């Protein structure tokens, strides 16, 4: 069976999985940059209401859940590394639950924006740039949830052990990245743009 890596004891090269996920994160960062720039560009440029300061509320609960999930995934990794597979399952499940809560939270926020405030993607440039940026982030959260659930199901069936440490780590890199993007989105959307003046 042929090897993919040429690594031997005195010739060490980085792990393909880790370099791969870091490169993917680089590409995703470029994608998000364009959407963030578009959002920033359109701050204060909407021709008609609703404007950000009228409808946006700071998403405390959702953000706490998402940032917290970055901590729980680290705890899960620690458990896996020390061979505590029960602890891993609990922490990993908690991460999954926090991620699902974030999606639920965003869903309620969007329901209010669309049904109560009448802000859709077609309403004004704020709506267009808001839903596309937050939606792109939400899409990445959903992809992360698929990955998290796959590992959770495997772990529940006792298929995950310390050999899979690196697989799990790759998913956690992605999840941390989704978190970091949320910091940028929070700053740009919920802190900066709600202070902009319109009209």
């Amino acid at each position, binding site marked *: *069976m*042929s*090897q*993919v*890596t*040429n*690594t*031997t004891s005195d*010739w*060490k*090269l*980085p*792990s*393909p*999985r880790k*370099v*791969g996920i870091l*490169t*993917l994160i*680089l*590409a*995703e960062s*470029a*994608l998000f*940059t*364009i*959407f963030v720039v*578009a959002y920033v*560009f*359109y701050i204060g*440029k*909407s*021709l008609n209401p609703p404007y950000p300061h009228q409808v946006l509320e700071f998403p405390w609960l959702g953000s706490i859940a998402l940032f917290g999930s970055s901590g729980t995934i680290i705890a899960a990794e620690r458990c896996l590394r020390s061979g505590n597979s029960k602890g891993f399952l609990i922490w990993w499940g908690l991460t999954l639950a926090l991620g699902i809560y974030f999606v639920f939270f965003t869903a309620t926020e969007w329901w209010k924006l669309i049904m109560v405030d009448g802000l*859709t*993607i*077609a309403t*004004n*440039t704020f*709506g*267009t*740039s808001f839903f*596309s940026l937050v939606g*792109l982030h939400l899409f990445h959260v959903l992809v992360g949830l698929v990955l998290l659930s796959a590992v959770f199901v495997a772990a529940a069936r006792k298929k995950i052990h310390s*050999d899979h440490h*690196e697989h799990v780590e790759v998913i956690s890199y992605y999840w941390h990245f989704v978190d970091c993007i949320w910091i940028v989105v929070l700053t740009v959307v919920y802190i900066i743009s709600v202070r902009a003046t319109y009209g």
Partner: protein
Amino acid sequence: MSQDIIIEDNYRLPPPEKIGREPGSFTSVIQGLVFTVDHKKLGLMYIASGLLFFVIAGSLASLMRIQLMVPDNTFLPPDVYNRAFTMHGTTMVFLVGMPIIFGFANYLVPLMIGARDMAFPRMNAFGFWVFFFSGLLLYFSYLGAPGIYGAGSAPDVGWFAYSPLTSKAFSRGHSTDYWTMSLLLGGIGSVSTSINILVTIFCCRCKGMTLGKMPLFVWLNLVMVFLVILALPCLSACQIMLSLDRYLGGTFFDTQAGGSAVLWQHFFWIFGHPEVYVLIMPAFAIASEVIPVFSRKPIFGYPVMVAASISIAFLSLGVWAHHMLTIGMSALGNTFFVISTLLVAIPTGIKIFNWLGTMYGGKLRMELPMLFCIMFLFQFLVAGLTGVMLAIAPFNWQLSDSYFVVAHFHYILIGGLLFTIFAGIYYWYPKAFGRMLDKRLGMAHLVFFTIGFHVTFLPQHFLGFLGMPRRIYTYQADRGWDLWNFVSTVGVVFQAIGILFLVANLIYSYVRGKKAGNDPWDAWTLEWATTSPPQDYNFAELPEVKSRRPLWDAKHPNDPDWKHE
């Protein structure tokens, strides 16, 4: 430790005969192509499909040249002409340039770094098939785009699709959507292949091959995939935004609803300019392998070549608005982009001098790969100089969107990229198929194509000076453009004959070509250390490297390179 991280990425299907097919039969050949995860087969498939799309897009270009041959011509109606230049541009960039350079990288990078395959072989196959279907999707627009009201056919908005041409009001039917979806899909394929190449280079090098000992081909492809990874997602973002505008009523680029058409231009060129360097880096990569081998000297200034490539890549991320000098930016904006663009000339000039320095005092062997590379040096110099001219803002205001620009970038992409691709084909064909390409047919190809290329594109500089805008489907007789347009079209005939010689050569030499042996050019990089064509596993025993020219070391044990490096 890392012995355990291996294997499952490299899963191979059982050979065709074990799943009930006759080996060598048509179905088993097709099955081999569809199921393969071998980097060499995928590399050749990339190049072959790139050449196929090249013939299609070249035919579209010939139709356009026939239309422009004489004034007031009615050969192509205006709407068909618009589709022709849009499809020509999109195809040449995304379905010819990108796949061929990915093909070369796919085939050669693992061989040159002494690896058995790419880091993620199945993702490699994924990347190829996504690219291939994105091409089919683009061309399916000719049939599928006339939606329910019969509006639209193939995309007709130009390859950079400026807003508001792409809005629902001006582009009815689905033609623009085929363009958008095809590029979105192709972008996914390009990024996944690039990630794969990058990981392969960082994680799969054979023992002793430090970054400083990699062949320049590998270095330049590393720089190229970095640019793809940074630039292509910007294009994907553009396409997502455009789709939101067209389908969900978004207002990104709708000026009447507060959007901005200029924003599209910025976003597109943030992708578009690095893309130019994505396409030219592999040209540098091939020249940097061919020129030393045929000058019988190691490359002159290896570290400087690497540094120059990295600085070109870095600078290329900050020059995009020189495509937009006529939109009325502030003086500061214009100045910034003029200066950053002019800076690119410095590392590029360093490269040209390094290739000349490699040839200087060398024992030149004027074989076909070398001849194509020498043509590349001359033509790329012309292209670079017209680029410097266009970077000067006042000059640009005069000639932006004229045939001068068309001539400039065709000198880059044909005179630069395509000529080195030809050099690469003549250089590595013996490795891929075990037979040399025929010399006389190759010379005919070189002579006809070079003459045709210059006869077609040199007069287009003059047409630009005479004020002929690009993308017009016809012109009046009193403009003074007749002669040069006629000459330009005549050149196409020579180019077409040249390409016919190439195709004939590829087929003829596959059957009748002289046997090549493992190392027909007496070269120095690892791909020549294995059989021609290489086995599935590339190397029976993984090589170990001590210098930048491992085969020189093997051939000259008394005077190996590593004693001097």
